[in-house]
């Protein structure tokens, strides 16, 4: 492995968990702060000022920006499966914080996701396209 490939692999392995965690926590806080029903159109605006929902929105904005940064140096075909580990973490969060049951089907699904992430994350390079020499090239 070249020095450049090793640098990108390390950078990606440090960055991808932050992307995944911000997405999982953003969705969790959105769900926790959301009322049972949004009846009137204005409710869709006022709900954004509830503390947990506001925190969730901020985390999801962070998730979007971090994911865009990740895509600036890593392949889409690498980022999509690797960040899918968020589905498995969301299921875990549901069990731990919301006491939702995880049956054998969900455990199997979590196992398949983890295996898929391990195959792509551990077995392939983060980037297969040539890099640009200048950061803000347009």
């Amino acid at each position, binding site marked *: 492995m070249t020095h450049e490939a090793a640098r990108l692999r390390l950078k990606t392995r440090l960055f991808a968990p932050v992307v995944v965690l911000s997405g999982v926590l953003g969705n969790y806080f959105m769900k926790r702060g959301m009322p049972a029903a949004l009846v009137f159109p204005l409710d869709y605006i006022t709900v954004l000022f509830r503390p947990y929902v506001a925190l969730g929105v901020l985390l999801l904005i962070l998730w979007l920006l971090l994911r865009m940064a990740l*895509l600036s140096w890593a392949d889409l075909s690498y980022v999509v499966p690797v960040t899918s580990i968020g589905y498995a973490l969301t299921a875990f969060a549901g069990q731990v914080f919301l006491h939702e049951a995880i049956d054998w089907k969900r455990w199997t699904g979590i196992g*398949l996701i983890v295996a898929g992430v391990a*195959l792509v994350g551990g077995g392939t390079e983060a980037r297969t396209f040539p890099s640009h020499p200048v950061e803000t090239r*347009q």
Partner: protein
Amino acid sequence: MRWMFVAIVVAATAAGEVLQAAGMRRHGEVRDFRPGAIGRAMAALARNRFVIAAVVAMAVAFFANLGLLSVADLSFAVPATAVTCVLETVLAKYALKERVNWLRWAGASLVICGVALVSQ
């Protein structure tokens, strides 16, 4: 009706992600994470036509997803739209010219099967 929403969500999500990847590749690797540099990068991205088109496509996907959730259960919506994972891998290979080896195909296929099971 719900399959029409699924088709819109899948197509718009895949288009948005591919456009976002193309836009970020055009922008170049983000190396500097200091506030001033992030501000300059965001100003540059706001003028990047691929990123603008990606935002439009993702907005379409968001509202189509809301429509889908209004006519279908979450346990149907999530696995039905998880097919974007494979579609994006196909587009990454042919539109973005990424080298997608068998490990990536296998990984994407395992993830889509896993998502289908987890969301039931």
